[in-house]
């Protein structure tokens, strides 16, 4: 499709994927009618900050992590939810009853927290309102039980500890091992324990009980409770509104190497499954959403002339006083090679991966990311 045939584009989603797509459409020369639909009333904000700085910064009402105002000149419909997509008539339907016609559409409705129960006691952290509410509760220094030993669960546990709470983290196996690999998992989990984190490893955990009296039940039979019960057990793509379009496979939207699900239909960010050197997968990370959105927006305007995604994940986390930045695929198995530093202090490390790629990791080590990228290498 040429830019001339593309008169109306609707971007559904106002997170970093949606607004990057909208910005990039303009950069790529699209000067037609652009509409951005977002179900949150807040202006777009930085989601990575929610489980990091925002939990600790008592003065920050979220405004400090609001993204710069949009300049794409789109009509912004905030606080409105898309309820359906009619790919034959090319319409996005909204929960206020309106229908938006499109020539091109960007699906960027992201994902939501996966839950272990329907109990209101189970708290999750996904959006700005969640973070502000959690921080309010932490002010009373409640005891906290975090279910989930991934990066988000560990960042939340770290924030709760720093707020003066007693924190227990329940993890399926060693925290972070599945996401980062054994070496980095060991470093960060040790940092957590040094700060007073109690780690409970289990085969599986459930949340049971009644509203106001929920508890965590471990596979081994033990039961745990706390004043605040948080879960961080992954995310579920928001694809229900695409029901009946044939675009959704196993709950997510598969796209090609340019982010297109079909001609004129792009899907970017946490709901998109795209080809990587390790197969087709979702990569729900900030930098991934940005890269996908840029590629897909250009593909909507320029079609197959647009460059495909050359994806190299960038991941960072801050927890228990340590910071980790990584370029390349994780988990990293085995022991690292030290480019600088050593096992106990700040270190710059690389791992040669089985697929021929190299993952570069900076631990408590300030380094320009372009330099970290040069140390990493994509799989052949």
């Amino acid at each position: 499709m040429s830019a001339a045939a593309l008169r109306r584009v609707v971007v559904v989603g106002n997170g970093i994927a949606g607004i990057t797509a909208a910005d990039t459409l303009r950069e790529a020369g699209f000067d037609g009618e652009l509409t951005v639909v977002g179900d949150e009333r807040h202006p777009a904000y930085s989601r990575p900050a929610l489980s990091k700085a925002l939990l600790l910064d008592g003065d920050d009402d979220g405004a400090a992590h609001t993204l710069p105002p949009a300049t794409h000149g789109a009509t912004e419909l905030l606080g409105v939810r898309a309820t359906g997509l009619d790919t034959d008539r090319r319409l996005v339907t909204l929960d206020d009853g309106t229908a938006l016609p499109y020539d091109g559409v960007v699906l960027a409705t992201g994902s939501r927290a996966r839950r272990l129960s329907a109990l209101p006691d189970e708290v999750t952290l996904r959006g700005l309102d969640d973070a502000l509410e959690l921080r309010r509760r932490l002010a009373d220094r409640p005891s906290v039980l975090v279910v989930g030993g991934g990066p988000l669960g560990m960042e939340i546990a770290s924030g709760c500890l720093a707020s003066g709470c007693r924190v227990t983290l329940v993890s399926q196996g060693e925290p972070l091992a599945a996401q980062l690999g054994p070496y980095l998992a060991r470093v960060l989990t040790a940092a957590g324990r040094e700060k007073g984190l109690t780690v409970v490893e289990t085969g599986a955990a459930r949340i049971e009980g009644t509203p106001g009296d929920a508890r965590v039940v471990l596979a081994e039979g033990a039961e745990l409770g706390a004043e605040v019960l948080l879960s961080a057990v992954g995310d579920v793509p928001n694809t229900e509104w695409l029901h009946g379009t044939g675009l959704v496979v196993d709950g997510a939207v598969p796209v090609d190497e340019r982010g297109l699900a079909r001609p004129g239909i792009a899907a970017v960010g946490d709901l998109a499954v795209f080809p990587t050197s390790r197969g087709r997968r979702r990569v729900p990370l900030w930098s991934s959403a940005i890269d996908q959105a840029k590629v897909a927006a250009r593909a909507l305007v320029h079609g197959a002339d647009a460059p495909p995604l050359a994806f190299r994940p960038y991941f960072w986390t801050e927890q228990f006083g340590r910071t980790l930045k990584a370029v390349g695929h994780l988990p990293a198995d085995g022991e690292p090679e030290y480019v600088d530093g050593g096992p106990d202090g700040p270190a710059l490390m690389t791992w040669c991966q089985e697929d021929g790629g190299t993952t570069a990791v900076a631990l408590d080590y300030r380094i320009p990311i372009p330099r970290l990228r040069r140390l990493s290498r994509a799989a052949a």
Partner: protein
Amino acid sequence: MRIVLDRPRCEGHGLCEEAAPRLMHLDDEGELVLDREEVDGPDAALARAAARVCPVAALRVA
């Protein structure tokens, strides 16, 4: 337009440099250096793109 850096907030992720390499770069210590602060025209758009990708909202274009 002027690029404004909130230095204490900057964590050196460098996504801004990737978005606008001709306006800013991280030095060998990982500190962000603004090579240009006053921008207009296409550079202003680049500056805004750089500010947008910062995960800690350390950049503003005012």
